[in-house]
């Protein structure tokens, strides 16, 4: 469970949950895409309240493991400026069986998105930048 400033290594994350008792590994990778809400995106700044984000990620994983006790989970979220196609978050959940690995993976990404103190500011091709607010339909544009 970590906030990192470097590109995410998916295989290293998978290796952390791998084990001789594991038969299924589900992963989720979030990437920067070139469009959002109809606007052309050139990149995203990710910012975190790092000590709290790390603790929230640990709490989310602990809750997943309370619900699916045999699942092994690892999560990493990147901060800094990312370009289109780069991974911002990666989750790996491993279990003897596939259903718990998939259910836990989904729980972790859905819960992470509503609770972990991380923010993103999109850079648009037109030169503006904007903090993304999922609680509002539209956000105020801030000139870059």
């Amino acid at each position, binding site marked *: 469970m970590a906030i990192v400033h470097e590109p995410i290594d998916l295989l290293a994350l998978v290796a952390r949950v791998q084990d001789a008792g594991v038969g299924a590994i589900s992963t989720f990778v*979030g990437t920067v895409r070139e469009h959002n809400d109809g606007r052309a995106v050139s990149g995203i700044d*990710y*910012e*975190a*309240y790092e*000590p*709290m*984000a790390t*603790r929230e990620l640990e709490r989310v994983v602990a809750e997943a493991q309370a619900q699916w006790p045999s699942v092994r989970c690892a999560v990493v*979220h990147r901060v800094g400026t990312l370009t289109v196609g780069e991974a*911002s*978050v990666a989750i790996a959940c491993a279990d003897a069986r596939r259903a718990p690995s998939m259910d836990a993976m989904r729980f972790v*990404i859905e819960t*992470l*998105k*509503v*609770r*972990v*103190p*991380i*923010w*993103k*500011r999109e850079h648009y091709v037109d030169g503006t930048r904007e*903090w*993304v*607010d*999922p*609680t*509002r339909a539209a956000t105020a544009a*801030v000139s870059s």
Partner: protein
Amino acid sequence: MTPVPVLLFASYADAFGTRTLPVPIAAPCSVADLVDAMRPLAGGDRLPATPLVAVNHAYAAPSHMVMPGDEVALIPPVAGG
């Protein structure tokens, strides 16, 4: 009175023009009172009705008491992932 330093991030840091805002209120105080003391400050009009607050790296209810030395942060709507 020693002001309570409040950590700000993302759109809130932009609104107040700083990443650590000294809020003129004496601790102990409730989270709700702390937020109310921020509203008259420059940028305070951009706060929502009930902004999320974290005390010592955990979300805190409006009635939670902030003690001297606590790490207090205002949490804008999160958008990780």
